[in-house]
């Protein structure tokens, strides 16, 4: 997160990372967390990362929570561009950047989630079914 987006490690100091078979979960550290091991737990905190092939992808929700601290690999788009991305099209990234994840912003401050930059072109990794169709029609 620090290498790609410039989000400092210290941003995560107050959180514990739990590893599952294919994902990692963040939960806020607290004195009470030690008791959790004695309970029948279905889910811990928020899913933060998941394995996608041989890569590790931050989750949309993690990026929405911490993306405001990013200082690079950011892509600000407008509604028209968002519609294109969600329709499966790619957009040209307006800077030189290594292939990898970029944070998609709608306007200046609405953090949508991640896109994937490959050879100067970005495609969306936002869960398509979660963006309301009525929003896109307007």
């Amino acid at each position, binding site marked *: 997160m620090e290498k790609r987006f410039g989000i400092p490690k210290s941003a995560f100091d107050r959180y514990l990372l739990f590893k599952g078979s294919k994902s990692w979960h963040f*939960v806020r550290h607290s004195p009470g967390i030690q008791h959790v091991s004695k309970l029948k*737990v279905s889910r811990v905190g928020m899913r933060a990362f998941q394995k996608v092939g041989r890569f590790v992808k931050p989750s949309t*929700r993690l990026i*929405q*929570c911490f993306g405001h601290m990013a200082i690079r690999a950011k892509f600000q788009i407008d509604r028209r561009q968002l519609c294109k991305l969600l329709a499966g099209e790619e957009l040209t990234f307006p800077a030189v950047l290594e292939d990898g994840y970029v944070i998609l912003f709608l306007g200046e401050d*609405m*953090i949508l989630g991640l896109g994937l930059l490959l050879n100067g072109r970005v495609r969306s990794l936002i869960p398509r079914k979660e963006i309301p169709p009525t*929003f896109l029609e307007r």
Partner: protein
Amino acid sequence: MTESFQRYREIIPEFSDFQEALGKPLPKHFRINRLKVESATLIRRFQERGIRVQRSMEKDDTLHVVLSELDSLGKSIEYFLGHIHPQALTSCLPGIALCPKKDSAILDMCAAPGGKTSHLAQLTENSGLIIANEPHKRRQSPLGHTLSRLGVMNAVITSYQAEQFPLKQRFDYVLADVPCSSEGKYRSPGKDAPPREVRQEQKLAELQKKIIVRGFDLLKDDGEMLYVTCTYNPEENECVVHFLLENRDARLIPMHLDLPQDPGILEWKGGRYDRQIRRAIRFYPHRVDSVGFFMAKIGRRK
């Protein structure tokens, strides 16, 4: 005019106004999620898009109602971003009544679908620990989804029957938003309420009594519990709280909420309840245009 809920004629004040209110649709209340956005920012964005909203409570800038014609709040970009949560006004009152401090240990005994749980996380600023217990497996996924969408990072989901939650640790706050007959949600223009299922209600009351006792036993010495239902039925409300007072060293804590409210009742069908139950609160749709609610705040007797 609907003849719904005639059995409550003697205990619900201004009963004809109450019946009339049942014929109107529920307003579109929502809560601004401060974990992800500031209230002023969200309101400004809505205003820029021509969406008119109004505050629901003077002293809380996160609770609003939509005044414009709007398809559904669940179809807005703000919903996807976790900036808002459609939530009945009365459903936000448990969090306000409990008023949990930061870094506390909280148990939400019947947490799904997660509106109240996420409100508690917002009020504690994602600090401390919330155990979001949900006994029904099929409701755990929507609970997890709600908590993720709203950026809740201090919650752990467990899957016990609420009345059997283990006594291995105690909590600063317990929320017992119990399964109930949900009469308070009923709004249907021109129709009568669905017929009562008496045996089902009796089973519910037995379960509610077990849950309230277990919730109380999970409190720390200075802990506070909120017993909540969305029904008008005294057999699921005051009677259950009275049962706790008879079986445990408990006391009712007064609450002061900035909305029209009525006290708990002391008599129903020949039964009399502990006088402390006047400190419980009833919310009716003709006083607060929202889901009917009952709340009782409980602590250990000092």
